[in-house]
């Protein structure tokens, strides 16, 4: 399409620009071909077509990972082949896929600089570069015990190393820990603790394993009703909870974590969720907050600084959960807004922070929570008011089947940008037991 040129700054910048202008073809560029970027490519290619539009999506990776599967990998519930496919098979043919590292966004010039030195001009940009772990943010976390007795399960390598460790671990102190909020899928560490409980029961080792859940929050979760339900479950499963723990360092030698207040928690295995951050590309571009998230309008998903830049998924700073389900709801609304933007129409302020998460509770059961910016998760039925079949905030086998089905839905429905029947992008209050509507 001729939109890529060797990047010899000034001079070529104009030639890139003119070239696209002459052709009258406009460029929409998507950064990141993970959950959110892939969904946007699938939504938009029906609407913004050649010869008027060229859509390009860029990712440095070849593989698309089903990240929710990382939770199951350490317990040998899923194997690597269950959760890895190629990026390419989910990208429509008329969308150009570039396998390249993205170095920088030059938002004032509408230019993307690639790792190879090439550059790309855009009329409209979508940032979907996600979030990743940054263990180096905590003193000693990536120390001598890293992947020996200190593990993460937020990366494929981490989950796999942990699987190998758990396969023949004979028991001791297992500490499941969150470094700081926000993190992707904030319920995942709790699910890990629940699944660990079941896993060791199965292996007849439960009485040899002490499980402690350590969180910087004041309780098991961020929303009061769900916290109550989840703390009850922790208690039932004999999992201890240490709250308000703000970690200062991992002491590799004595195998303990220490917080700023001097509190110490010893471990034999530490399963930690390190600080999560947006990609360093955001920092290099001078576009992020102190965790490299892009300031984004929470109802329209437009960047707060640049009108032709939109952000969705884990890369934005909006106060919604960093979850695939959220990215799915965002993608439906963002598609509309991008079409409005290119027509010069006002954007819809529609995104309400809708999140919908299954919480695996072990023993073949799961909980389901549904919430948004203003409404916390409560009990009730989903998606059909009064009928279900899924129960909100109550453990059930049906919810567990839902969680397992989610993987199929992810590969076959979500990524392709197909609307899920009966589940709307904005949250429904029907069939839910709210006492009072909150602010």
């Amino acid at each position, binding site marked *: 399409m001729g939109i890529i040129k060797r990047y010899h700054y000034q001079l070529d910048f104009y030639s890139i620009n003119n070239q696209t202008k002459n052709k009258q073809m406009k460029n929409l560029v998507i950064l990141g071909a993970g959950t959110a970027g892939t969904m946007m490519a699938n939504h938009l290619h029906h609407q913004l077509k050649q010869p008027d539009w060229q859509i390009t999506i860029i990712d440095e990776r070849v593989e698309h990972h089903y990240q929710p599967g990382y939770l199951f990998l350490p317990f040998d519930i899923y194997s690597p082949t269950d959760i890895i496919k190629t990026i390419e098979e989910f990208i429509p043919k008329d969308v150009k896929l570039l396998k390249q590292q993205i170095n920088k966004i030059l938002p004032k010039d509408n230019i993307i600089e690639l790792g190879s030195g090439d550059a790309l001009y855009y009329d409209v940009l979508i940032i979907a570069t996600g979030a990743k772990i940054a263990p180096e943010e905590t003193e000693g976390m990536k120390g001598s015990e890293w992947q020996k007795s200190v593990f993460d399960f937020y990366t494929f390598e981490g989950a796999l190393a942990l699987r190998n460790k758990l396969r023949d671990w004979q028991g001791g102190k297992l500490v499941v820990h969150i470094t700081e909020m926000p993190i992707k899928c904030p319920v995942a560490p709790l699910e890990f603790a629940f699944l660990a409980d079941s896993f060791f029961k199965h292996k007849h080792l439960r009485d040899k394993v002490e499980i402690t859940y350590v969180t910087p929050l004041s309780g098991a979760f961020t929303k009061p009703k769900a916290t109550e339900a989840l703390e009850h479950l922790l208690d039932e499963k004999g999992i201890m909870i240490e709250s308000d723990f703000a970690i*200062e360092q991992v002491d590799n030698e004595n195998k303990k974590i220490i917080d700023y*207040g001097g509190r110490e928690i010893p471990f034999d295995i530490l399963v930690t969720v390190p600080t999560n951050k947006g990609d360093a590309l955001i920092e290099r571009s001078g576009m992020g907050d102190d965790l490299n998230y892009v300031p984004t309008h929470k109802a329209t998903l437009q960047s707060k600084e640049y009108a032709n830049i939109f952000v969705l998924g884990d890369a934005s700073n909006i106060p919604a959960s960093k979850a695939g389900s959220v990215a799915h709801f965002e993608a439906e609304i963002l598609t509309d807004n991008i079409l409005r933007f290119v027509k010069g129409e006002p954007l819809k302020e529609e995104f309400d922070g809708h999140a919908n998460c299954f919480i695996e509770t072990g023993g073949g059961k799961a909980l389901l929570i549904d919430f948004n910016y203003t409404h916390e998760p409560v009990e009730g039925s989903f998606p059909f008011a009064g009928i279900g079949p899924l129960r909100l905030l109550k453990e059930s086998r049906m919810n567990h089947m839902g969680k397992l089905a989610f993987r199929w839905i992810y590969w076959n429905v979500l990524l392709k940008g197909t609307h899920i029947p009966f589940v709307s992008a904005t949250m429904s209050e029907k069939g839910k037991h709210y006492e009072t509507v909150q602010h």
Partner: protein
Amino acid sequence: MEKTIAGKTITVNEEGYLTDFNQWDEKIGEALATEANITLSPRHWEVVKYLQNEQKNQVALSIRRIGKSGLVDIKEFYQLFPNAPLKTATKIAGIPKPASCI
């Protein structure tokens, strides 16, 4: 709900945070600190004022942010307001509990 403190009636939420910052004054701040077993030193006041100012400028508060503020490091923040410093300090400052977590 209503609460009488330092001879004044203030409105607080179920966790004891003021719902209207206009009701706050330094006497109330001191009384709230006493409830948290803290005696406010000039250093505490610097932090309280800093938090109020950030809140006024609609900056989302987090422990990480305060650590990078140049005013206190996280260690000192913990020494000043033990256990859960951000929650305690914002309560004394009469501003909402930070919703840093989703």
